[in-house]
């Protein structure tokens, strides 16, 4: 075998890729960058040439299941009131692997009995490992995983209930399929309940 043939073969590969980059740019004629289709093309099986996403000018869209930090959900009442879904049952705090969820269970000031509302809710977001267990095991769909990953800060990130609360409409916008599925299940449950109470 001729010495250098292997190297030439390899150089052929790099040369082809080099040319492909320009061909692909030409084919897309300016649309390859900074457009949703361009980004989708660059992360498809047919992608050739430059892969890099020009962050922060461009952002890779995140899939629905993407999880970053958790947030708490509230339903919006007719008069703008925030009906917090969390019942302070404590399941998420028990399931959380690094134990970064802290909950003070609500109590009725008159009777001293537990009420289904948190009196305090913190997530130490610096410790949170984004595992998603809290959202997975909450029986009330009260805590979900957010898509916002730009959370860098100069200080520590201890999130209290005000930082954590977001409306259900926001949840529906980032996780439409999950939201639809859960709503359906809720309606089916309510219908079953209604049918039972009528019978």
């Amino acid at each position, binding site marked *: 075998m001729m*010495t*250098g*043939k*292997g*190297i030439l*073969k*390899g150089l*052929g*590969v*790099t040369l082809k*890729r080099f040319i492909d980059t320009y061909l692909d740019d030409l084919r897309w004629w300016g649309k390859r960058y900074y457009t949703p289709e361009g980004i989708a093309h660059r*992360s*498809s*099986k047919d*992608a050739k040439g430059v*892969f890099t996403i020009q962050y922060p000018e461009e952002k890779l869209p*995140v*899939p*629905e*299941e*993407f*999880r970053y930090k958790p947030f708490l959900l509230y339903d919006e009442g007719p008069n703008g009131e925030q009906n917090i879904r969390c019942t*302070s049952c*404590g*399941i998420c*705090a*028990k*399931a*959380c*692997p690094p*134990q970064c*969820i*802290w*909950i*003070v*269970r609500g109590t009725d000031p008159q009777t001293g009995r*537990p009420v289904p509302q948190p009196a*305090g809710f*913190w997530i*130490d977001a610096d410790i949170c*490992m*984004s*595992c*998603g*267990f809290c959202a*997975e*095991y909450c029986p009330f769909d009260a805590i979900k*995983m957010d898509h916002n990953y730009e959370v860098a800060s100069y200080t520590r990130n*201890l999130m209290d209930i005000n930082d954590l609360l977001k409306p259900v409409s926001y949840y529906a916008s980032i996780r439409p399929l999950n939201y639809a599925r859960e709503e359906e299940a809720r309606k089916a449950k309510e219908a079953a309940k209604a049918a039972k109470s009528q019978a």
Partner: protein
Amino acid sequence: MTTPAPAETLDLAARFPGAVSADTRPGYTGWIVTPEKLLEFAQFVRDELGYDYLVNLCAVDYLPENRMEVVYNVFKTTGGPGLTFKTWAPRTDPIEIPSVISIWPGADFQEREAWDLYGVKFIGHPDLRRILMWEGFEGHPMRKDWQEAFYDEDVKPFKRRWPDGKHVYAEKRAVYGDNINFKPGFDPEKWTPTDPEEALYKSLKKYKSETTDGIETDHIIVNMGPQHPSTHGVFRAVVVLDGETVVSLKPVMGYLHRNHEKIGERNTWLQNMPYTDRLDYFNSMTNNWGYALAVEKLMGIPVAERAEYIRVIMAELSRIQNHLILIGMLLNDLGAYFTPALYAFEERELILDVFEAVSGSRMMCNYFRFGGVVRDIDEDSLRKIKDLVFDRLPRKIEEFDRLLTENEIIVSRLKGVAPLTAEEAIAYSMAGPMLRASGVPYDIRRADPYGIYDRFDFDVAVRYNGDMYDRYLIRVDEMHQSIRILQQAVKSIPEGPIASQKPSYTTKVPPGESYGRVEGPKGELGFYLVSTGKPNPWRYHVRTPSFVNLTALEKMCIGTKIADFVAILGAVDIVLGELDR
């Protein structure tokens, strides 16, 4: 392959009367050997019974029974189930157990780890130094009565979190120092450390200077790392050089040590799942599998059929991206700066896109659950996977092949360098591609099958020279085989549920022990677990390929050039997340 006689039919107790007894604790298997007869027993097991391959050695602290146990999992490189045996000593220092390093040299680092973390003295070990903690550290942090600086409670969930969980920062509650127990009579103010490096340098082969041809020549000691771009993380090797040739070498590790196993024993069974992601963070899918497998064994539960296919698909995709990165980075180590590495990253990104879509995260997948996986593959992702395995990946692997395999520089840098014979590879407990590149066709997916690998048609890749070039080629071969498996799996994946258990954050695990092992991309990943029936594991040990595969590093490097050391280390394919744990 001959089917080995099942271990249960062997009556080893009769063979060693008074010294060996069957382990009859409920949920346990194997044999208990007295320390006095341990070496004789081990020799017999290796030479007469053919268990030539020690894969796992770890200590277990049975504090309530005042018993320190050492567990050995041995296998035959011809395949088949393994044999477990244990020895124990009372839990009062010094705890002394004979070292099996003379029988299985692969015990070297694993015994050092047990010494470091549990304080088991292995008599006869030639270099019993700490390995993950630093020399001069007080105490043995895996012992059950050892408490970390920010100790909260023995096991999770911590009572401080709910129902009266007013948040306080750990350092406010337990100001550093409050949790530290000093030995009686120990005064930290008066303490002066002995140089922790002294023992390390002593362990290296003697430094010498000599006069050749009238010129005085010295050996020199070079510290590669811990901050060194070629060590793939914070890893250090101390090398004694004669000119450019390596005379002696000791790896130094533990810079990323976080006492993963201690955390694991504080966690509930399920809480460990996302922590396994952080071991080999390139392959969280296979880490999840190894752990799930060990727990499923303990629980005795089946895995949903569709989930079995999903598991295979995810594990093989993971293997392909791991090998691509390995090859790319190996070329970096050889000096081909970043072109192959970035080519590899492109394909890896496409695979990670799939992981992100199904699991929610590109690298910290946390995707497996006991009895299945957390969620189904959506149609879109399945289509993407098909595009990858039928179209793009075969093309790209072929392109890599064209780019690199025949390149004369690569061939001359790799061929014949740092060979390891089959016998050596087995003796040093090498696993995965490192073992198979040395001519041992041992692949857990075939030798001790798990999941549904027995349903797929694929070959165990094997190469026979055991040199660096074969370590490169074996990865290419394995990617081709993974593609074969994937093509079959995506074609035949059935519909159906993806979990055999109801989702729950609590797990009931009956008492007992189990060792679950999977063929990770880097080699055998094993989990040794002990359950006492409580919500948390009593023992959670991870046998990681990165750690054990380094046992032979010195052997491979001696006589090579210092520049080759970088590539040799690269080809072992270590990742510090699982090496240091």
